[in-house]
């Protein structure tokens, strides 16, 4: 089981802040494709990956990164701290 978290407008578009999913996706790209195929809300949220960032186990990562051993994946827009 993997925890998938969504923040800011990604959370609003998908309509939930987090969910647990059973997946055999090998990379973040594969997971995005799997989620996008589920439902139009996901497809819309993931339609432009250049507008998204991903964190694996709370570390900023890349969309081609492997998911082997990863327990928590988070998708969000570019951060606006400060």
């Amino acid at each position: 089981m993997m925890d998938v978290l969504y923040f800011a407008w990604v959370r609003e578009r998908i309509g939930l802040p987090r969910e647990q999913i059973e997946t055999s996706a090998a990379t973040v790209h594969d997971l995005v494709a799997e989620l996008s195929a589920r439902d139009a809300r996901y497809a819309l949220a993931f339609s432009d990956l250049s507008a998204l960032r991903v964190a694996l186990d709370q570390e900023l990562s890349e969309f081609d990164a492997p998911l082997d051993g990863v327990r928590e994946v988070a998708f969000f827009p570019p951060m606006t701290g400060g």
Partner: protein
Amino acid sequence: MQVRVQTEEFDLGQVCADFSARVTGAGAVVTFTGIVREAEAGDMLAMEIEQYPGMTQKALEKIAQDAIERWSLADALVIHRHGRLAPGAQIMMVATAARHRKDAFEAAEYLMDFLKSRAPFWKKEILKDGRADWVAAKDSDEDALTRW
């Protein structure tokens, strides 16, 4: 190093006084405070700041630790608020202490540049008419990281 992620207001004067008092071997303390800016149209009711609990603290500690090592700081402090803040409210502050002012100033700028685009916070402007807009990240904020 002190890193605090909180919803509560902080007392800038008290934090600065405490930070300076506990530091040893420094000749310079620099502080920066970020304030919720009123929208140009004057139609903003509040700024809502969302964070990624768990990742936020770790990301801020990493940024502060990198600054401490790079500029041999005597100490560094980061406070960042989240939740709903009114225009004019203090959002965040950084403080750096170094032997010389150049290092303290540079380290404070480094902290600010990385806080802007590497700390998991997202700002949303809540307008008086009920609309709400996510604040878009600026390319210039990402570009600012390349100088380090």
